[in-house]
Every structure is written in C-alpha cells, then in structure tokens.
C-alpha cells in the first residue's frame, strides 16, 4: 500500500441517516438464506469487536446447527479502554443494529435476541426500549417471530468475552468457558448462538442495503470495509470517526496527532502500542496482505504525546487487568499481579532491569496458556511497551 499524503477518507456509512430498515429487511427476507449468507461471506466482513472472526461464516455455521432454539446476541459490553464507538452507534443508529440482528435471526432461525448492554451505559436503556417498540412493530409487519430484549451488565470488563457474556446472562459469574465448543454450537443456555459486536451488526445492514461489492470498495484485501474508530488521548480532535481499514498508523497520526505524537495504542489496553518509529510500517487491519505489521482492533486509538510516561501508561493497564481478570485461570490471575508488582519493583530499584526480561517471558506464557483472550492479550501491550520504552520502565 502506498503512503497517502492526503487526509484519510472520512466514511459516512454507519452513521448515515437512513430510515429504510423495514424495506431493507424485507428485501433480505425475500432472498434465500444461502444468498444472504453468500452476500455476507463475500463482503469479507470480519468481527468489529476486535477478534475479527468472519461474520458470514459465523452465521453460516450457526444456521447449519440442527437445534431448534437459537439466539442472536448483540455484544454491547464495550469495555476496552479507549473504546466508545458502540455507545455512539447505539445512540445514533440503533435501528441498523437491530436490523442486523433480525437478518441474522431469520437466517439462523432464532426467535429471541438480546442486547447485552454494559452497566455503564444504563442511561441508554429508555431510548433503546423506545427503539425496540418500533422494531417489534416492524417484526410484526414483516411476519418474523423475533423478539429482542436488553440484558444489562453490572460492571465487569471480562463479560465482553463471548462465553463470559453467556455465563453472565445465565446469572453466573462472568467466567469464560472452555473452547471448544464454540458459541455457534453451544452458546447462551447451551444453544447455538450468534454473538456479534454492535458495529458488526450495523455493517450487516449496510452490506444488505448496498451489497457486498460496494462494501469491498473500501479497505484492502483481507481487511475490507470501513471501521468506526474511537480516537482519544493527546489529539486536538478526539471523537468517533469512520475510516477505511488498511490505513497506516502514520497516516492516522498525521490526521489526528497533536504534532508531538510519541506512540499510539491500537486496540485498547489489550492491543499493541505502536512507537513513532513503527508508524509507517504498521497498518490497521487483519493479518493478510498488508505490509509490515497488521493490527486488528476494535477501534480504540489512544494517542500519547511526548509528555506521557509510558511507565504510567503500562501501570494503568496492568492495574486494570489485575482487577478485571475473572481470576479463574492461573496465568491471568497471578500473571497480571506479577506484572504489575514486577514493573513497580523494577522502577523502585528493588529488582534489576533484567527482571523485565523475566516478565516478558511470563507474558509469553500468559499468551500461550491463558484460558481466554483477556489473559492471552496482556502480552500485547506489555511487550510492545516494555520492548520499545525499556528505559522509561527503569529510570
């Protein structure tokens, strides 16, 4: 990909004012399930929560399950530090999200759907209830037996992990499950379940309306389409931006930095910190055709300028993780505590600088052995910060 010098394209798909959900849904209901699934598969849409699982495939697998009862769940437990786009989408275009859920429900044969809304966004409930009334009216008119309810979280980051989310909905502690089985076979109440991020569902509406081809006009190979980014930190223009996938961090910084950008945290505390020297060769997107490093992300872009101590940043992340780990598995529960105490000990001089290498090895063990994505991904920010800003950890 060539380096752009001009401003990044601002895309206006997700938040575009459109009031045609009923028509789009009707159009999609009139098509065969196979056609709709193909459209989704061909669009190349990947999960916008950060994990990047192909959405069409997820729908297809669940549709093939023989079980009678199935569920569609919208994952609105947006808790990754630096992410706030799902709130914005649910505030401004909830009908598109619901339309995505209905399309999915029709294909897989689900009669019930839930929006798992994080407790921090409880203030959204009244307006979402209003929206649901309209939505259920449309369901009636289109003759689809599909009801959506809101399930409110209660302050637990880990519940954004899909199997922890099911546990939480089932009235239990949000402890991630063993996988396999995967949600497509065994999700909420052990039934086949499609669980999609808020933004993914809104994109499904867009794809249904404009077609897979149009979607693929945006982005790059293996990372098609646009993505909503949550931009915060040392930027003159914090906020929500819909941009094409595939951009380099350099282009992003040129647009959003304050001129003194030292590093960008891509993908929140569980993502990677990109230091200035890596801006040009780091691209936002999934593994594939991008040159340099590809960084999948849920859209959190936190910008740090040269006044920021990377030690403080890492300390803040680790404090977050040691609190928000569910605590069930050894590498994550004890590992997070060790990392936090470890960097403090090095900073105080109680441990030699070489102790950082021991901690880096520990993060590798966590990545390899933790039960779920939380413990596995602590290594991302830890290693990218410690390796690039080692001196800030010590002095």
């Amino acid at each position, binding site marked *: 990909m060539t380096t752009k010098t001009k401003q990044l394209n601002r895309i206006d798909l997700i938040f575009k004012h459109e009031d045609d959900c009923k028509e789009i849904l009707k159009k999609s209901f009139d098509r065969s399930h196979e056609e709709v699934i193909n459209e989704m598969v061909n669009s190349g849409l990947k999960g916008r929560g950060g994990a990047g699982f192909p959405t069409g495939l997820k729908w297809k697998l669940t549709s093939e399950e023989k079980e009678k009862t199935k569920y569609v769940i919208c994952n609105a437990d947006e808790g990754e530090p630096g992410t706030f786009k799902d709130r914005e989408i649910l505030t401004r275009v909830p009908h598109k999200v619901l339309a995505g859920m209905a399309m999915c429900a029709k294909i897989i044969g689900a009669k019930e759907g839930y929006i798992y809304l994080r407790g921090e*966004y409880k203030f959204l409930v009244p307006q979402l209830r209003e929206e649901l009334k309209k939505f259920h009216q449309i369901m009636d008119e289109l003759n689809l037996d599909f009801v959506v309810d809101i399930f409110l*979280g209660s302050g637990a980051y880990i519940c954004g992990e899909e199997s922890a989310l099911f546990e939480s909905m089932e*009235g239990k502690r949000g402890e991630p499950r063993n996988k396999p089985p995967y949600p497509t076979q065994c999700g909420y109440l052990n039934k086949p379940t499609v669980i999609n991020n808020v933004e993914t569902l809104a994109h499904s509406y867009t794809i249904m309306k404009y077609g897979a081809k149009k979607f693929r006009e945006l982005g790059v190979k293996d990372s098609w389409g646009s993505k909503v980014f949550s931009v915060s930190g040392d930027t003159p223009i914090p906020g929500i931006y819909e941009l094409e996938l595939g951009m380099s961090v350099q282009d992003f910084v040129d647009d959003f930095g304050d001129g003194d950008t030292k590093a960008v945290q891509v993908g929140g505390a569980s993502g990677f910190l990109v230091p200035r020297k890596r801006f040009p060769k780091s691209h936002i997107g999934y593994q594939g055709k991008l040159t340099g490093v590809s960084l999948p992300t849920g859209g959190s872009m936190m910008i740090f300028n040269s006044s920021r101590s990377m030690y403080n940043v890492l300390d803040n992340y680790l404090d977050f993780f040691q609190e928000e780990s569910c605590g069930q598995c050894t590498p994550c529960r004890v590992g997070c505590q060790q990392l936090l105490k470890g960097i403090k000990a090095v900073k105080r001089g109680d441990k030699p600088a070489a102790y950082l290498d021991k901690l880096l090895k520990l993060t590798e063990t966590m990545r390899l052995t933790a039960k779920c994505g939380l413990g596995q991904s602590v290594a991302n920010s830890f290693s990218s910060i410690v390796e690039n800003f080692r001196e800030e950890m010590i002095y």
Partner: protein
Amino acid sequence: MNDQAELVKDLVTEYGIKREKLLPILQTVVEKDRFLSASAILKIAEETKIPAADVYGTASFYSFLDIVPRGKYVIRVCKTITCAMKGKNQILLALEDFLKVKLGETTPDKLFTILETNCLGWCHKAPAMLVNDDVYTELTPNMVVDILSSYKAEADKK
C-alpha cells in the same frame, strides 16, 4: 414482611425461578438499596433456591453490585488511562475536598460514596464520572462542586 423481602418476592414472582434472572433481580435491589445486604442476599437465595454463598459470590464478581453499604449517590470516577491522563486525580481531590471523605468512603449523612471505576467509555470527553446512572464528562474541579451541590439540593428537597 419488610419492604425489601416484599420487593424480592415480587421480583421472583415476576421473573420466575430461573438462574438467568438472577442479575436483573440483584440489579433491581441495588437500584433501590444501593447495595446488597446480607439479609437481601439471603432473601434472594431463599426465593430463587440458589445457595446464598453462590448468590454472594456472583454479586461480588460485578463491580456495580455492591455488597457493602453505599450512599444514596454513588460516584464512580473513571480511573482508566485517558481519564487518568486528563486529570482524574484533580477530580478525585475535588470530590474528597467537597465531601470531606476519602476514596472508598461514604459521607456520614449516607448521601455520597466516592469510588473509582474502570473505563466508562467516555475517553474522548475525559475525565468522566458516573453518579448512579448519570454520566458527567469533561469534568473540572469546579464542575464537580456544582454537580454535587445539585444532588445535595435534590436530596434536601425530599
């Protein structure tokens, strides 16, 4: 039967004895009492037929399902990175100064509790805090005083 027991009984009648209704029940009790007392959890356990230790263990997993007494207004200041960078500590100091209690404590009049919380999802408008379910963003120490004063006034009216 006291109010709380009645509320729990009504909730269980409304939702049915299903484990998947436990969180909504706990949330409703917290909304009313601001925390889950031992007696509330026992009543919930009795009505839902879930062991009390299990209900307790489940509640304690969730930051918003407090199991220690809280004030009428629970203030949760976001402490995650962007808010930390944009002056969370000043906000906390302003709160402590105004309410004359420390982080984690409740005012003697049981009106306010100051807590910290993890990312609230308002990083572009940091620093942010919740007062019960209401969000306040782009806070300054002066704003904090105004916000709390209005809650105080509201409480005084009642």
